[in-house]
């Protein structure tokens, strides 16, 4: 298959911090509407991969092609404009603003200085915010200051802030960490629902959750791909077993 048929093609990606290669010659491919889960022990470079894709960290070498467009040369906001959304490990929302305002600020219009000055809260914005709020179970909380939400609700809100931008690729860093069992279930359902029409990359440690959602799994170890394939295949890969249980 040629590169451009993939939504995201990562090839030979390397980043080194003062000689330490956090990600080392990594390659993987994500298809349209795929849910890809990246797992691996601590320090395997999972979060760094997301940082590299969304432009937070600049790569030392290698390429990241999104719909055939090279992302390594773009700055962060251009990568977002290209259609990549990224959720951070700790819920990062605007705690001083209301849920409504959080979503409104994420609505993709008026993104430059003068656009923001002229921005009006019109019917289109209201409709988009209400639709997303409904998806992320926060309709009743639109007027609440975001800092007062529970940990799980904050995670959902951040996902909602990405959804309102309608990204083609959504990257989630440990979306269910710190959630209750019920919230985990709801989140799995949410993820399954929102992948319609977009691909998702998830970093997660919770194996039950991974089994619930993953189409394919990439196992990372020491900055490299250790194994890749369906959950079933990966689980039975002796290399994976050794990394997880060997020491």
């Amino acid at each position, binding site marked *: 298959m040629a590169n451009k048929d993939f939504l995201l093609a990562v090839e030979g990606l390397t980043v080194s*911090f*003062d000689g*330490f290669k*956090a990600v080392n010659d990594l390659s993987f491919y994500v298809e349209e509407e795929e849910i890809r889960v990246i797992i691996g022990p601590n320090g395997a470079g999972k979060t*760094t991969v997301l940082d590299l894709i969304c432009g937070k*960290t600049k790569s030392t070498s290698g390429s990241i092609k999104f719909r055939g467009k090279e992302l390594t040369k773009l700055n962060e906001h251009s990568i977002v404009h290209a259609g990549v959304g990224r959720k951070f490990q700790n819920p990062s929302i605007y705690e001083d603003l209301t849920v409504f305002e959080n979503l409104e600020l994420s609505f993709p219009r008026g993104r430059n200085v003068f656009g923001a000055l002229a921005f009006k809260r019109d019917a289109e914005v209201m409709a988009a915010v209400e639709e997303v709020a409904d998806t992320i179970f926060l309709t009743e909380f639109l007027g609440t200051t975001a800092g007062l939400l529970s940990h799980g609700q904050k995670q959902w809100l951040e996902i909602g802030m990405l959804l309102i931008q309608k990204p083609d690729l959504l990257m989630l860093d440990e979306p269910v960490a710190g959630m209750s069992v019920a919230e985990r279930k709801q989140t799995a359902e949410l993820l399954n629902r929102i992948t319609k029409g977009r691909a998702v990359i998830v970093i997660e440690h919770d194996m039950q959750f991974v089994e619930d959602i993953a189409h394919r799994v990439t196992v990372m170890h020491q900055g490299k791909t250790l194994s890749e394939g369906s959950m079933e295949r990966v689980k039975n890969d002796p290399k994976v077993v050794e990394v997880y249980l060997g020491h």
Partner: protein
Amino acid sequence: MFSDYSSTELISIFAMQGFAGLILFSVFVLMALGLAIIFGQMGVINMAHGEFMILGAYVTFLISNLFADFMPAIFSIYFFIAMIVAFFVCGAVGAFVEWSIIRHLYRRPLDTLLATWGLSLILQQLYRTVFGAREVGVTIPDWMMGSIPLTDIIEIPLNGVFVMCLTLIITLAVYFLMFKSRFGGQVRAVVQNRPMAGAVGINTEKVDRITFALGCGIAGIAGSAFTMIGSTGPTSGQLYIVDTFLVVVFGGAASLLGTIASAFTISQAQSTMEFFLSGSMSKVLTLLTVVIILMIRPQGLFALKLRK
């Protein structure tokens, strides 16, 4: 601008200005060491650092008077006692300031900046009330007077040499304390991961207090040394504070070597240019160059690329 001077004259000029620069370098290093510890290790901006230095200078002044009045026989060694007293007085005041103000503001660096500025105003007025607005100077002991003639044009004043030696010794002491001792390890542990340091049994509050007090104490020694080369007034500290902050930032805040290298570069640049341009222009050019370099390389001269 060089054409008016012969080559031997030029060499002498550079040597003399270089030496003057070395004295400025010593003051910068002594002041920057304390700041680098407080800012680089704790992330606290202490705008009153210059006033701590001046406190050390006033302590030295008082003790020199004390010796002159009551113990003239051993006047020649008063300086060493003054230096030790200055260290402890400034350290104690520093510990009190940390306890009363700084510890409440660790998460708000910009607010510490404003609060310590307030403190500096209070200290300045206090000095003015106690010691008067005029600058005071100490009597330099006899053995520090005079100079070593190097060639027939170049002479090296002894007090300058003494201050430089002192700087060297204190720098080495700080280096060993911060990077080779158990205490230094604890400070760096607290800086890098406060909850973890607390969990392994380090008393983080105590470490903070001692670190801050140490930085202030070193400022006190700087003040002591300062009296050997200049006179002291209530606002003398403020003259150096911005330069010293630039020295620390320019060197890369957490790097001791960087601080020394940048103090050297800035002081030499300034004092060499001073001979050819007016004093104010050389300062403007030096500071402007530093600011422009910092705009291009904000992390300073010596900083690691870290995984964030």
